[in-house]
């Protein structure tokens, strides 16, 4: 499997007046055209890892890495202008809640068309046609009507499908999905995931799926990284997640309720201060 993205020793720091918060502490991994899950609790650095790949860490945050390469292109060496040509066009990102990630005063169709026009030299009419096709591809029944709708007029599930359409319309090579279904109803979660999965497979894209939902990641991804306190503590194939050995992963698994094996009292995850000090592992393949 050829390497699409390789990340080596990635750090994200936030400099405050009194202290420095290290959100990501030396993460290394590679990604092919596969579906890679990143799991971890809040604050484990998984979202920041996603944003750092796009070089979207804003001051007072800063990022550094020994290597950040997309298909042989050194992303660290690019100017901001060159980086903009990568964003959307080669790497895209879907965020958690469409209620906040769509611009409330712009028609959703225009937002999709804009994403297309940012990288393709086409006129308005052509971008509109492409946006309508994309709305159709994410299984929106009445694309013409939805094109002219504003974000507050669509439901959460539809909003997230619009986000997917917007982020996939320039046909990127890599999609980062940052908790794409966490804000949705359980009933529409699977539907949205299925649509995303289908498109990612069809276009042969790489996917980084960031989530705190172990079961979801295990069933949806090929490979899983487990992050804790800014480091990768464990990596394994998704279907072997239940064989994970790191005590943190074991703790996470043990705290999940299982329908076929009810327990009177769910285990509470005990965090060991020593985990923080351990070096992370290199998840390159």
């Amino acid at each position, binding site marked *: 499997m050829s390497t699409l993205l390789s990340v080596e020793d990635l750090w994200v720091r936030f400099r405050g007046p009194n202290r420095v918060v290290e959100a990501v502490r030396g993460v290394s991994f590679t990604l092919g055209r596969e579906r890679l899950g990143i799991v971890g609790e809040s604050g484990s650095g998984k979202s920041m890892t996603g944003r750092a790949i796009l070089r979207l860490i804003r001051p007072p945050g800063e990022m550094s890495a020994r290597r950040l390469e997309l298909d042989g292109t050194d992303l660290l060496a690019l100017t901001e202008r060159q980086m903009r040509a990568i964003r959307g066009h080669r790497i895209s990102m879907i965020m958690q809640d469409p209620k906040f990630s769509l611009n409330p*005063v712009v028609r959703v169709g225009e937002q999709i068309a804009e994403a297309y026009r940012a990288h393709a030299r086409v006129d308005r009419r052509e971008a509109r046609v492409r946006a309508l096709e994309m709305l159709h591809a994410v299984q929106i029944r009445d694309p013409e009507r939805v094109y002219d709708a504003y974000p507050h007029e669509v439901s959460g599930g539809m909003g997230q499908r619009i986000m997917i359409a917007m982020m996939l319309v320039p046909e990127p090579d890599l999609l980062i999905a940052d908790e794409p279904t966490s804000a949705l109803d359980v009933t529409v979660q699977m539907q949205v995931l299925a649509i995303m999965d289908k498109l990612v497979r069809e276009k042969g894209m790489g996917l980084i799926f960031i989530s705190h939902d172990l079961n979801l990641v295990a069933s949806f991804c090929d490979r899983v990284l487990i992050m804790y306190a800014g480091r990768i503590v464990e990596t394994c194939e998704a279907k072997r997640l239940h064989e994970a050995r790191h005590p943190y992963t074991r703790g996470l698994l043990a705290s999940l309720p299982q329908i076929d094996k009810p327990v009177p009292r769910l285990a509470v995850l005990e965090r060991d201060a020593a985990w923080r000090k351990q070096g992370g592992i290199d998840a390159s393949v």
Partner: protein
Amino acid sequence: MTVLPHEEKHRRRGQPPPFLASLSRLAGTMLSVLLTMIGLLAITFIIGRVMPIDPVLAVVGERASPEIYEATRKAMGLDRPIIVQFGLYLRDIFSGDLGTSTLTARPVTEDIARVFPATLELATIATLIGTLLGVPMGVLAAVKQGRLVDQIIRLVGLFGYSMPIFWLGLMGLLVFYGILGWVSGPGRIDVYYDGIVPSVTGMILVDSLLAGERDIFWNAVSHIVLPASILGYYSLAYISRMTRSFMLEQLGQEYIITARVKGLSEWAVIWRHAARNVLVPLITVIALSYANLLEGSVLTEVIFAWPGIGSYITTALLSADMNAVMGGTIVVGAVFIGINLFSDLLYKLVDPRAR
């Protein structure tokens, strides 16, 4: 009554057809405007009654006999019940009669038609200056938050906020008129140009252009530029400050990250995405600041000998010219209501959530 099929469909859903819905919303707005207007008139009416000034005495003079006094009182309708008086007052106002000013001995309507355009001219240019400079300054300050340019813009705003306007006015006159001679002095126009162009709108800038008198137009510009800049500076201070804080709020929103993920330029992120959302609350800010200036800024008008509505009402108040005070208050109130209505309509235009 016959019911057309498409009408029936709408009724069945329990909703009126769209055009009727917007019509009824418009009617609702108009009704509330009318009610506000009547409330305003009630207040001015009460002001006219509770002021310790005898309106009859003001007309007949102190030495009139009791018979004349009584006859005048009757003629003015002041012996009728108060509610009837209010009704008569409303009738007069809606027929455009605001009474006669005791100070100028002219109908108040005429007086206001003369002074209000002067204020309108000044306030409009000041608001244009404040908006055209204040909005970009606020945006720039927000984008460069914490940097030198932000500090400078905030200092400029703070200065405009905290300097008394009469001091700014006097200093402006001293420096730009007295010492540098860049602008003309107080007044709307040089004396020898006075009364040449026919008054159409009452605004000299517009009237001189309509008459094709370029010299007069530029003379008027040289007179208005200093007071308008000073008032404009004041509204700039307010508008840039509000723009900065609205912009900072919007730049922290998630849809801004989305826009950056798409690969848009910083310019597009700020002006195409954030600015459209900043515009929503900014409309109210600009409208209120404009309405405040339209009330007439007494200090500026006095310093620059500007015959506007602020100094007109103040003079009238000081000489107990109640018709003029009430008339002026009504006009200022009506303008306020009008601008609020207009900003509400604009608001609906830019924010789809408010429709």
